[in-house]
């Protein structure tokens, strides 16, 4: 008897992506460049976060035709984004057979109180988190993979740094607590005690932890890995740069060999212009995408 959609199959899928780079792509041609560069998966969307930020307006799930076009072009997994809380967008993405759904703060939220109940889906979900409590709440709703949120579409890595450091720092703190203290920690984190205990025992999240948001250079990617991420999402950083194919390859190599500064130096040469970017401290609090999610 074959069973699909189990937690093991969903979480196990993310385990296969570890040490890799997942790239945002908006056309089949970009998906081809990403696969050729060695991306472990692509995120199919209509506009990269930098353009979403520039254009404003409401940002939604991509057209299924556009996602199908990308699926037809590559053999690596294809992910797609649904709005926070928009369970019907998620149903549609599952129906067209995407490999992973990102319930993403980069799109305009559809529900300001609830996230999607991800346990009822066969397709696995990745969700963003700025801290451990948020990560564990997403896992309790069924997320099979977590990505720390940066500030998408800025090319400024500082928020990604803050959030991965926060999550991993909070986990480290949990591992020093006794069983009594864990109850209080669960209350403070607003997360189920079972997940808090499991995380404390493992010394890491029970699912794979990638990082995302603002990664624009090979050195950024390697820094996220050295800080303790299992892998990296790169959104606008590749296809908003001067030479996407070269930058994509360089980011893949720097992620695989994140501890080897000489190799990172070698792949960082002659990549052309990085995305111009926006410094996060020039944005108002209302412009911060990372604040979306509850």
């Amino acid at each position, binding site marked *: 008897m074959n*069973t699909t959609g189990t937690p093991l199959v969903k979480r196990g899928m993310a*385990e*296969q992506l570890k040490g890799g780079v997942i790239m945002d792509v908006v056309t089949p041609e970009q998906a081809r460049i990403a*696969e050729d560069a060695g991306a472990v998966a692509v995120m199919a969307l209509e506009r990269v976060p930098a353009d979403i930020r520039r254009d404003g307006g409401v940002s939604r799930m991509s057209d299924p035709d556009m996602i199908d076009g990308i699926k037809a072009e590559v053999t690596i*997994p294809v992910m797609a984004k649904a709005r926070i809380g928009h369970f019907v967008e998620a149903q549609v993405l*599952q129906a067209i*057979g995407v*490999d992973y759904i990102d319930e993403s703060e980069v799109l305009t939220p559809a529900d300001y109180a609830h996230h999607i109940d991800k346990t009822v889906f066969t397709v696995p979900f990745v969700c963003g988190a700025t801290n451990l409590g948020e990560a564990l709440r997403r896992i309790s709703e069924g997320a099979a993979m977590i990505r720390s949120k940066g500030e998408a579409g800025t090319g400024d890595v500082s928020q990604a740094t803050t959030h991965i450091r926060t999550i991993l720092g909070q986990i480290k703190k949990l591992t020093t607590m006794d069983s009594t203290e864990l109850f209080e920690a669960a209350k403070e984190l607003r997360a189920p005690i079972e997940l808090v205990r499991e995380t404390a025992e493992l010394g890491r999240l029970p699912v794979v932890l990638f990082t995302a948001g603002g990664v624009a250079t090979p050195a950024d990617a390697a820094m996220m890995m050295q800080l303790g991420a299992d892998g990296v999402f790169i959104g606008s950083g590749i296809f908003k740069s001067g030479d996407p194919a070269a930058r994509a390859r360089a980011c*893949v190599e720097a992620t*695989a060999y994140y501890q080897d500064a000489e190799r990172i130096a070698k792949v960082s040469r002659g990549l052309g212009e990085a995305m111009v970017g926006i410094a996060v401290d020039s944005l108002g609090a209302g412009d911060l995408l990372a604040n979306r999610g509850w």
Partner: protein
Amino acid sequence: MTRVGVLALQGDVREHVAALTVAGAVPVEVRRPTDLEGLDGIVLPGGESTTMGKLLRIFELLGPLRSLLAGGLPAYGTCAGMILLASEIVDGRRDQELLGGLDITVRRNAFGSQVHSFEADLDVAGVGTVHGVFIRAPWVERAGPEVEVLASVGEHPVAVRQGHLLATSFHPELTGDERMHAFFVRRLVAQAEGGAS
């Protein structure tokens, strides 16, 4: 001390390292050609086979690993690792780098996309009943005359052995059951060390 390498370019390396330790081997993460020295066997983990193939070439491991495998180094590939060991693939990228050695043709993502990924119990010859986790898994479309089929799903082989090479389309490293790794270490690696076939 049996030293078994785990190709650590990308994929579920940590899980294989843990399984090999329980199976009684000393795991060694392999990232550069010098890491291949003194290994008694090597595990090619699950991950993305296109990514691993590219990194094998970029980091100059493709040639050295091919000659070690051809020279009889025991190897066990799971999922993407099975694809890397195959002599031929269908439904893959035409330019995909393979290590080869196993006389099989594999079909990538044979069961479909992630929504079709599944768990199932399998009878694996020489091991027993194993809980198989199949994630966007390949299957064996053609097995050469020297290839022993150890387990199948329907009519498609999902665990095969040819001499010193072992491959499964499923991921025993995800289940906390070390028997496939123990089979690899105690049968294939020990045999190669003992000089038997």
